[in-house]
């Protein structure tokens, strides 16, 4: 596996948003994503977890070039997407697709289901009209929808059905990588797992790699091979999913794990929990030192002065926290 370049290799990616103003004092630059690294290998799934405002969605948007990256590289099969223009970029886009959070707004209300699914084929001029129709029907089958739905409008479908249409659209170009931004959080509980199961099936049948973005660790743990936890634009912990979710090291990851309620009142009410107080740090107002210091239950003096580096503990797991830093000097 290591001989092949990873499907996705993000290095040192930064995204900033500038607030413009006539008054110099009101101008500011927020580091929404601050030099992060991510790697996804073929057929693997990376879970990207964090609260709203952590920069996880912006990271995904920067990867597909919906948000402008300030610096860094996003290599897809070894080719840097950020350096491509025009036709080259258009061709590269075939290899990476995205599924959005809200299936009610990600499908154009004026198009039929078949038109939505076939649009990527039409944009890339793949196949004649009739063969596109066949592809649409095949895709519908793959995502478990009846082919009779091809000519319905999105408004006639339920949320779960729409999300499946969005997934069919994302996979019809046979991409190498699909970014899923909160793909199930707008859906009913009983359909969430069905969508996740479908993603798992697509991964095994097509060898597609996924980046699964969520604010809820429970939603990614079943599918993810690796997990990266983001806070205020930086990655605070990453590693094999099973390790990270079972034995979280960073106090923020511990809080994320603790925040997921356990569906048994007796267990749930007896749990010892790290309930985070306060609000996520504002990327426009990043503190010196550790980004998590204002909410960390184990904050130390060093956290207010020095930013902890993301350090590998030797088992493939990296944590950015002074609690785990080797003592220097």
């Amino acid at each position, binding site marked *: 596996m290591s001989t092949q370049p990873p499907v996705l290799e993000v290095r040192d990616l930064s995204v900033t948003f500038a607030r413009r103003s006539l008054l110099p004092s009101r101008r500011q630059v927020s580091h929404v994503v601050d030099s992060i690294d991510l790697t996804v290998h073929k057929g693997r799934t990376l879970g990207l977890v964090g609260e709203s405002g952590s920069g996880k969605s912006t990271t995904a948007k920067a990867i597909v070039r919906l948000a402008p990256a300030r610096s860094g590289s996003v290599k897809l099969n070894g080719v840097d997407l950020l350096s491509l223009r025009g036709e080259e970029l258009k061709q590269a886009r075939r290899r990476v697709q995205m599924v959005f959070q809200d299936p009610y707004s990600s499908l154009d209300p004026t198009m039929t289901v078949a038109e939505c699914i076939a649009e990527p084929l039409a944009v890339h001029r793949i196949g004649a009209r009739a063969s596109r129709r066949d592809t649409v029907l095949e895709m519908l089958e793959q995502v478990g929808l009846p082919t009779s739905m091809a000519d319905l409008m999105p408004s006639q479908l339920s949320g779960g059905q729409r999300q499946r249409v969005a997934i069919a659209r994302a996979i019809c170009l046979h991409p190498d990588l699909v970014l899923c931004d909160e793909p199930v959080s707008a859906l009913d509980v009983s359909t969430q797992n069905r969508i996740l199961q479908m993603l798992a099936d697509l991964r095994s049948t097509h060898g597609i790699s996924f980046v699964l973005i969520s604010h809820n660790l429970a939603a990614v743990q079943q599918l993810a091979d690796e997990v990266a936890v983001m806070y205020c634009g930086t990655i605070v912990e990453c590693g094999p999913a099973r390790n990270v979710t079972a034995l979280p090291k960073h106090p923020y990851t511990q809080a994320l794990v603790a925040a997921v309620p356990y*569906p048994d009142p007796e267990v749930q009410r007896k749990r010892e929990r790290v309930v985070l107080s306060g609000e996520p740090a504002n990327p426009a107002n990043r503190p010196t030192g550790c980004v998590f210091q204002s909410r960390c239950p184990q904050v130390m003096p060093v956290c207010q002065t020095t930013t902890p580096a993301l350090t590998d503990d030797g088992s493939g797991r990296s944590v950015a926290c002074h609690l785990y830093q080797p003592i220097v000097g």
Partner: protein
Amino acid sequence: MTEVLRVDRLHVDARVGQKWLPVVTDVSFAVRAGEIMGLVGESGSGKTVTCLSVLGLLPRTDVRVRTGAIWFHDRDLTAISRRDLEDVRGRSIALIPQEPSASLNPAFTVGDQMTEILRRHEKLGRAEARRRAVGLLDEVGIPAAASRLDDYPHHFSGGMCQRVLIAMALACNPEIIIADEPTTALDVTVQAQILSLIREKAAQHHAAVLLVTHDMGVVAEVCDRVVVMYAGQIVESADIVPIFHRPRHPYTERLLAATPRMVQHGEIDPPAFAYIPGSMPRPGTYATGCRFGPRCAFHEERCDAAQVPLRSLPEGNLARCVRTDELDFAETRSRA
């Protein structure tokens, strides 16, 4: 314990095109003083319509209560005048809405919106209302409450907006708070804070809570009793522990199995992807027998014979299933 609210044989119809179709069928339940009652269901279950009926906030042209009563103490909320209802709604029944950021008027400061309630329902003067508002914001954990009173809603995060709305709900010391999916739009980390805040404040103010949600994890965290709805009907109703440990309706059991949870210590594999095949039937397409029948793993011919009644079980809970005594969910769990 005294009952604060009793929904009695409620039937609600909604207009679909030219036809009126039932969306809530024969729903009865009571909320007792001081308890947190969970009203659980997915979209299309009728839980939102039920809670809007209690609040008298149904869009009258499209949804109407056909029969039934909603007793708040000894007054039937479906039969009293609009004026009286508005008075009850502001003062004795409060709402914590689903979309915190959309539920505050962006054109007015948080202080304006809070003092308006206090001045209208509590007949307080301007200065006194402001003082109370600061106290309430402080109580729900908003730091530097006095200085935030003059901020506009967009200066608050989603979690902070929800705290403001909880403060507004508490403003007139209501007897019952209806919380409509209060944490669905929030991060899981903020969800935990908001839920414990609701639980704590309800206890302090001796208010009962009707918590509407689709998430059994939320229910496990705060509720005392649960009513589960499916396709406009109650399918199961029980105390909190029994419903989690021994669900008596297949839908409840599947809903529990589908609830996302973290791997526990000692578990080797993450929980399997449990889900319910098919989708919630739309109004007008309900099965004649058991409405969950078409999606149920335990479905038999006799399930379709006639409407299934909500039966009282020896443990004191209710379930709408003809096979409830013979079901063994352990088997489906291992199969899934």
